[in-house]
């Protein structure tokens, strides 16, 4: 193996249960996002664009799709001689199998992998955030500070600060205090869950943490507080750009709708910082005579005869004449039959919506104003469901794959 200055460990094992039906068969990082991508594409593209060509992806929960999707990293140009992407699932060793217990534990279990590249620094990432970031700049900062650990931070609204890990830093940005989800935050600088460690320091503290039977083996809850207590030099790297945690259905839906804003902060059409994704083999999108499309993104392979407004359509979606789609996210290969109304819903892959069915409702024109609230009433239809003609599926009713046909259920 060739020696690398910095390699990345990408935590992709999360179940993401607050994404409800969206993570029924797949890990959270594999959830589709933005009409063309999966959530993990953003972190992996950041690695590729930042010149980090060696990434270990730690998987655990329903990794099948992720394993297939990531392969050798060809989609992100993360292959070639040496390095590349390696999937690191839990495994059976000499003393039997061991599931990953926490974020820190999963990295601890793969110290051999890290050692094989002899990196000076290790970048720890989550696979479930939407953002474009140059990790190289953070690495330069980390080196300049000669930090044991650098944590990327972002300003969040004061009223939301209690949901995050909050940093208190001195004038030099050295962190003096780290509070995980504080009741009374002294600050609004939140951890983005992006860490650069000196490799030796990381290994030392992972070993200490593994020996501590009271630990939850979590970076935020255990490892970083211990490092602070023991006097390690930890610096905050202030990040200014767009960053979203899409951990709930509401935040997922809001982040999707934000892309459609005319002045969207996530620059999708930015040629210098391309987000890579898997290739598809669909023809261009087709809009029939009489179709209608407004403020939407529509991927290739869609065939639109109906009306689309404020919506994101993934590839291969078919919208038949007279159907209306509003404020919704329609994943790949969905078929929306004639006369269907879809309103404020997330429709999973390969769903068929029968003629005249109504999905979702309660459209709020001013969604931006209620941002952060949990009262969005978004209807989620799971992958591969089959919605019977003329049925009514209301908000918060999930359709499960096993119940093959549902009809006549009105909103709850």
């Amino acid at each position, binding site marked *: 193996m060739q020696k690398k200055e910095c390699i990345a460990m990408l935590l992709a094992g999360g179940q993401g249960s607050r994404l409800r039906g969206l993570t029924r068969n797949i890990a959270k990082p594999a959830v589709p996002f933005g009409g063309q991508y999966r959530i993990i594409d953003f972190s992996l593209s950041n690695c590729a664009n930042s010149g980090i060509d060696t990434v270990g992806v730690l998987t655990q929960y329903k990794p099948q799709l992720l394993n297939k999707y990531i392969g050798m990293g060809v989609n992100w140009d993360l292959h070639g001689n040496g390095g590349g992407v390696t999937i690191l699932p839990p495994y059976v060793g000499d003393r039997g199998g061991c599931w990953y217990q926490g974020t820190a534990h999963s990295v601890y279990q793969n110290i051999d992998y890290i050692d094989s590249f002899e990196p000076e620094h290790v970048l720890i990432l989550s696979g479930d955030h939407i953002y474009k970031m140059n990790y190289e700049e953070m690495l330069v900062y980390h080196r300049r500070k000669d930090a044991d650990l650098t944590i990327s931070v972002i300003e969040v609204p004061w009223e939301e600060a209690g949901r995050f890990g909050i940093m208190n830093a001195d004038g030099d940005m050295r962190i003096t205090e780290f509070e995980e989800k504080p009741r009374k935050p002294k600050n609004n600088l939140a951890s983005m869950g992006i860490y650069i460690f000196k490799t030796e320091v990381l290994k030392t503290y992972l070993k200490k943490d593994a020996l501590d039977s009271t630990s939850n083996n979590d970076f935020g809850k255990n490892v970083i507080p211990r490092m602070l207590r023991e006097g390690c030099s930890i610096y905050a790297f202030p990040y200014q750009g767009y960053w979203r945690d899409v951990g709930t259905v509401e935040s997922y839906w809001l982040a999707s709708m934000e892309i459609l804003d005319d002045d969207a902060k996530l620059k999708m059409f930015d040629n210098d910082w391309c987000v890579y994704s898997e*290739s598809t083999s669909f023809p*261009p999108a087709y809009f029939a005579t009489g179709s209608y499309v407004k403020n939407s993104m529509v991927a290739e392979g869609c065939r639109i005869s109906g009306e689309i407004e404020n919506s994101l359509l993934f590839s291969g979606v078919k919208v038949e004449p007279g159907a209306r789609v509003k404020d919704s996210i329609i994943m790949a290969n969905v078929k929306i039959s004639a006369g269907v109304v879809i309103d404020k819903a997330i429709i999973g892959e390969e769903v068929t919506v029968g003629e005249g069915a109504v999905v979702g409702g309660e459209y709020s024109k001013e969604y931006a104003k209620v941002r952060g609230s949990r009262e969005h009433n978004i209807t989620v239809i799971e992958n591969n469901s089959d919605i019977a003609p003329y049925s009514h599926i209301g908000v918060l009713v999930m359709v499960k794959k096993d119940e093959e046909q549902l009809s006549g259920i009105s909103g709850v």
Partner: protein
Amino acid sequence: MKKVLGLVHQMKNEGLLKSITHHRCMAAVPFGGKYRLVDFVLSNMVNAGIDNIGLVTPAGSRSIMDHLGGGRGWGLDKKHGGLVFLPSANGRKTGRRRIVDLRDFYHNLDFLENREEEELIISGSNVVCNIDYHKVFQGHLDTGADITVVCSGGEKEGQVFLDADEGGRIHRLIIGKNKKPDTQPVVSLDMYLLKKELLVDILRECADSNRWDLIRDVLAKRVEDLDIRAFFYDGYFAVINSLASYYRCQMELLSPQVLQELFFANGPICTKWKDGPPSKYYRTCRVSNSLIANGCQIAGVVENSVVFRKVKIEEGAIVRNSIIMPKVKVQAEAYLDGVILDKGVAVGKGVHLKAPKGQPVVVERGATYFQEGAFI
């Protein structure tokens, strides 16, 4: 189908599609919003399990090599076999353009002889269709023909027409316009199945006689001596050999039936993958009867048009009956009707470009129009 070798020949064609083919070989001509012509023949072959393909590549054509690269888009990036570029023979050009230039294959005789496959499918690079070569090959084996020529009974434009009897045996090949207006024309799709051994024999004879056109010099003359049979294909197809057919065929793609048949019914048509977001349709856009690839930003009106990747159409601009290649920018209030804009053309604010009906006008690569007012 593992033991069939695919061979793709190319017309010498500078200028056949006006400026579109000045800097591209026919295989590399952009088509259908995200493809190049060669994608159809390559995909048809790959979908039938043919994964060793030799492609005749004219000298100096960077575009086709850029597009095909290692063949990854088609799953042809194999350690063994895959896609091989066959340099075309760069001899003196004779007066008459050859329909299938066998000199290019003769130039690569060692490649042919070293391959282990015994059967060949030869195809032109300018036929748009989604054909199941499994069936064609089975038909070829069933009749036991020496050579099978794929053809269609449609009313389509073409270059070579066939006279076949009821058993499918071809008795005459007619080059140019179909000369018997009383009968239904049968047009060749420029695809040929035969044994490699037979091709090698033919090539050696050509070398002796120094006559190199598969159609004129071999098939047309040997209809009695060789068992040449027609395989009738009844799906959608188009042979692109003029600007008119290039334009018309892309307008045909706007029919949902053609779209379905070409892209959704049989195997996929693969191409080089280019990353980029889906297209964004702004509040001010109006889109109707059009094909639009990824990465576009559409704020104006698009009607009856084919729009390639990364095109930007500003608010108030109107695009009708046009073919807009990648990275074109159309500014506000511009008006386009019946034009073919090559890659990277910039159309300034208020510029009008309108072609006479049925006579599409080509704007060459990288051109910019910024003076306001009507044009053409």
